[in-house]
């Protein structure tokens, strides 16, 4: 399951859909909106995307992960638009027979998202706003 959504992400619903009786491990990563960045207080975020390409790249990450790691399935959901502090912007769920590949594939997926998926974050501060470009 690879999706771009505009409403709050229901993590439980995704894990319920992904998990099968043959799985021994389900690893869940949640990227959440932090109230500070580079020493500045962040009020909220907005995410923008080149949607068709972003979706294609999320699917590509899923295929790469399944080829590289012994996992059974992966879901990635990224939210777009306005998000408040503490809200979840990204969810990755990996299901596999054993924990090792599930952890590895999850780490691989979030790193890859930050490298090749055309999504951008805009941070809003008390005194202005900045498009974040690249990862720190």
């Amino acid at each position, binding site marked *: 399951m690879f999706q771009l959504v505009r409403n709050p992400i229901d993590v439980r619903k995704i894990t319920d859909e992904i998990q099968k009786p043959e799985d021994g491990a389900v690893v869940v990563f949640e990227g959440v909106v932090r109230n500070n960045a580079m020493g500045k207080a962040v009020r909220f975020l907005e995410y*923008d995307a080149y949607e068709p390409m972003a979706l294609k790249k999320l699917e590509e990450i899923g295929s790469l992960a399944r080829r590289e790691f012994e996992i059974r399935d992966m879901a990635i959901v990224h939210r777009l638009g306005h998000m408040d502090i503490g809200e979840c912007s990204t969810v990755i769920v990996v299901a596999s027979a054993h924990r090792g590949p599930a952890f590895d594939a999850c780490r691989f997926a979030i790193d890859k998202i930050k490298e090749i998926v055309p999504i951008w974050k805009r941070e809003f501060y008390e005194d202005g706003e900045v498009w974040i470009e690249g990862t720190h």
Partner: protein
Amino acid sequence: MSLRILFFASLADIAGTRETFVDAAGFTTVRSVFEKFAKDFPKLGNHRTGILFAVNSEFAGPESPIQDGDEIAFFPPVSGG
């Protein structure tokens, strides 16, 4: 026919739009299209973090050939997750 041009994030702010169309005549590579817009919007040309290109939703280099009807996107390094 024409080329569909897309700008995202800070580049959309610089160009003042997310989408525009140009006549494909005279453009052969991604670079040639970019140079036209860098002339229109000098800030694009000296963008601080560098600019990435995509043709029809796939990353492309500056020398990638383009064809009538292509969708060409210009955007800064990504920051999702």
